């Protein structure tokens, strides 16, 4: 993996997965790991942070005689994900432009897009 995944991008990936389907920690990690090289313990702090900031909520569902903790997206989380998607698309387009060498208009990369 040549490119680093930054914290907001990781947040966006997690929120995106959870938007399509309520998930638990293990499957979330495996889904991200199919694309990005992260360790098994990378996502817990991310999930905890998103939960604390109200982007995710958790609920327990019984599975094989124990409780499995599922993560679901909240209204707040959807807003956040929308924002991240917009920023990401903008950033992606500009970077593509730079790589392809389109210099007719030099894009102004906003501070927010760079974080």
């Amino acid at each position: 993996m040549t490119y680093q995944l930054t914290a907001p991008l990781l947040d966006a990936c997690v929120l995106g997965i959870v938007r399509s389907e309520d998930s638990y920690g293990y499957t979330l990690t495996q889904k991200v790991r199919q694309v990005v090289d992260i360790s098994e313990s990378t996502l817990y702090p991310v999930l905890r942070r998103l939960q604390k900031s109200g982007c995710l909520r958790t609920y327990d569902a019984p599975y094989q005689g124990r409780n499995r903790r599922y993560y679901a997206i909240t209204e707040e989380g959807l807003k956040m994900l929308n924002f991240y998607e917009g920023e990401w698309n903008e950033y992606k387009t500009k970077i593509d432009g730079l790589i392809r060498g389109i210099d007719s208009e030099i894009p102004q990369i906003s501070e927010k897009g760079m974080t």
Partner: protein
Amino acid sequence: MNKQQFLQELDRRLKLIPADDRQDAIEYYDGYISDMELPEGTDVVASLGTPKEVAKNIIEQCTQKHIENTAEQKTVKGKATVVWLTILGVLALPLSLPLGIMVMAIVFAVLITIGAVVFALIVSAVAIAVSGFFSIFWGLFVPGFAQKFFTIGAGLMISGLSILLVYGLVLLIRTVSHNIYRKKETEGTGYEQ
């Protein structure tokens, strides 16, 4: 390390973070390891990493969160926890930094001591020289022939002594400063002899 040992070790390493964060983390990893569905007797560490690494991840997150919370609330308790976590962080730093500071302090102290001793010797030598020359002149005004001779003689002796002393001092300072200079030079070029 089996699941139970892993969780115990993780719990032990999370002693210093708030109780609810700690419990949440333990529950998460309890479920996570179950979901990994490892065959009986498999080493959890091999697939999940050591409890130390996992704990480090969680503690970093907690520290950051606390700093953010403190910035918002400015509670004394929150501040105290951040200070506590920061102190622990500093203690956990590689030993090289504190050791480096210590070595520098010792070298500095030694240099100051040498400087002080040399300064004291110079002052003493000057005092002896001055008292010697002063005695010669003082001898001229002392009443009595024998006393005049004695005082002037003593003054001459002390003056002669002070010349030897100053000469010795110059040699001493030269040797010491030369040694320090050479020592610095060898340190700078990597201990070549």
